[in-house]
């Protein structure tokens, strides 16, 4: 059992849990993930490590309540425990030498992009953070990102924060204004990573994306997380989850993401019925 020592609500749908997991905290690096299971009947889901504290022995996860498992997880409180929590899984991000980087997050992806920005910043790189959200109420980690970047640009799809647009537009503008990035890290919805990778390919800027496919074990056993990268089949859990954005077959990844849509909805509706049943009782 893994105890929750802190819970935070970042926006109405996004929650943060700081979890006691000393072994994992000792080893975790940006880019890696954990797999958790909430209860005995629960599924195993991968979540990227958003932060870790080696001294306190804790690992932080940030997640959006999109399905039954993330809802159950979001319903847990400080002092309660998560049944299973395994990691750190996947390869740590490998940056090489970086002078100037743009770290881009889309929605929840910002939570995963944040530790990357933090690491690059601590390595002495000049970091610009670009984060995009649907509207201003969904903005997360603004202060944290400002603390680890030279400049932070936040866009909203509806312009409700006064800065309407997509992260890709901001990146393009920054590049055209003469910012010489030698690395772009982009984490968010597949379509966003695809668009940004398309832009950086034009300009020949190295681009790292973080894939989050469906997986079961997270240790290379099931092969459910197959991603085609540069024409070769890779397992995101052990070969990734970071890959060269210019090489990833995003269209295939988007299709594979839909494999269990129907079942996910079924699971979620069943869960909601039971919840409402309890409320009505």
């Amino acid at each position, binding site marked *: 059992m893994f105890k929750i020592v802190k819970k935070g609500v970042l926006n109405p749908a996004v929650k943060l849990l700081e979890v006691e997991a000393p*072994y*994992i905290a000792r*080893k975790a690096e940006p880019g890696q993930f954990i797999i958790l*299971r909430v209860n005995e*009947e*629960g*599924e*195993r889901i991968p979540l990227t490590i958003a932060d870790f504290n080696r001294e306190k022995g804790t690992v932080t996860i940030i997640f959006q309540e999109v399905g*039954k*498992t993330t809802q159950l997880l979001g319903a847990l409180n400080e002092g309660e425990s998560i*049944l*299973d*929590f*395994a*990691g*750190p*899984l996947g390869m740590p991000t490998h940056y090489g030498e970086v002078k100037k980087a743009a770290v881009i997050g889309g929605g929840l992806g910002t939570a995963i992009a944040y530790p990357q920005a933090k690491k690059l910043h601590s390595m002495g790189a000049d970091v610009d953070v670009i984060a995009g959200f649907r509207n201003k109420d969904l903005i997360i980690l603004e202060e944290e990102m400002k603390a680890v970047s030279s400049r932070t640009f936040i866009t909203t799809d509806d312009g409700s924060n006064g800065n309407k647009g997509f992260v890709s537009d901001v990146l393009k503008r920054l590049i055209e204004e003469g910012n010489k990035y030698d690395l772009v890290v982009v984490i968010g919805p597949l379509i966003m990573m695809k668009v940004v990778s398309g832009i950086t390919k034009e300009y020949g800027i190295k681009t790292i994306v973080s894939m989050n496919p469906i997986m*079961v*074990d997270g*240790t*290379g*056993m*099931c*092969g*459910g997380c*197959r991603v*085609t990268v540069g024409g070769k*089949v890779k397992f995101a859990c*052990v070969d990734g989850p970071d890959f060269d954005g210019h090489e990833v077959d995003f269209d*295939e990844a988007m*299709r*594979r993401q*839909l*494999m*269990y849509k129907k*079942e*996910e909805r*079924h*699971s979620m509706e*069943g869960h909601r019925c039971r919840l409402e049943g309890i409320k009505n009782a």
Partner: protein
Amino acid sequence: MPNMSLKKMQMPEQEPEKRVKNFLEVALGYTEEMAVEEAKRCLNCKHKPCTKGCPVNVKIPEFITLVAEGKFEEAYLKINETNSLPAICGRVCPQESQCEKFCVRGKKGEPVGIGRLERFVADWYMANRKIEQTQVERKNRKVAVVGSGPAGLTCAGDLAKMGYDVTVFEAFHTPGGVLVYGIPEFRLPKELVNKEIDTIRNLGVDIKTNMVIGRVLTLDELKKEGFEAVFIGTGAGLPSFMGISGENLNGVYSANEFLTRINLMKAYKFPDCDTPVKVGRNVAVVGGGNVAMDAARSAKRLGAENVYIVYRRSEEEMPARLEEVHHAKEEGIIFKLLTNPTKIIGTEDGWVKGMECISMELGEPDSSGRRRPVPKAGSEHILDLETVIIAIGQSPNPLIKSTTPDLETQKWGGIITDEETGATSIEGVYAGGDAVTGAATVILAMGAGKKAAAAIDKYLSER
């Protein structure tokens, strides 16, 4: 007076029509009377040919004699002297190529049902045993076992019996390895696996789940934590794919993923359990081993109408246990032999709709001694399918190797060990089971775990 019947006492089974609708165990086991009758078929040969077929040296004629005398508890203790997991072995060992292969009764008629008797004895004991904590003198020396499958559990059990403090590290949330993620409930009930694991815990073995060794702790770090020796029994978890086009279409599974979803994650209980699995009306399983049979029979139970085994050689070369092939046929699995897939065909939006196959014929023997299948030109044909399960083998998981550069492995990933002791290229580190041999059997893994336990004891005693 021995029972001279040429045939084994039949073991009751669930009827095929009924069992394809449930996940309950197919074979139901002997009653006491049946077991005594079958045990009386044993001639108690002086030279005990059967025992040389057993990788863990079960004292076969001795335990069978005790069964014939109705001394079931004594029979269990006799088996348990060399085998810590008899209820499992009795169910999943390929007896026809091991102990029973050498049985004198098999020269004319069927061999003694050694596996069935072993299973009976283990089940009888589980139902009737009194749990007692075994007291052994502790040595206060720590040994780590990585992986809680058959190799790891056997090694841990044997070391605990010798008085070592054994900690088993398991990456999954449940111990058991392939016994829980790979072999289906209808062949090996998980409740029984849990009981066998409890027996090992009762010996004082500490099992830590959710510990992915190689990531969370390296072998060096285990040594720093005070473990004086390490046994690696991490199995063969890396699934192989065919490398043909269409393998990433939605609806294509590795057998590992398909079975793990069903067995470990209980997808057959969806939505009561949260993990889903997709099974179309028409399912093809590619491969001819036990894993392929397990996947095909699971698909049938999940409602598939037509389930095909697509295998490139003929039935004679099939590596699956006879009983599994027999059960699969009884359950209506369709065998497409001498057939090899050439590509998987998808719909416009990326779901499986069929598989192109080519017919094969057998040519000259290859390096495995089996006749090599050769494609017949122009024999391409298409199977209409929604689900394809690839069960063509697994290789060892490279996780530990990737963080332990000194650990020498074969090109294909198997850890290189001394055959007699399981010693690896690193002092104090031993390995065994599928992690060394590539995908093999439960009993061979147990044999390797046993040898390594003895070698670790010798190594630590001399240190």
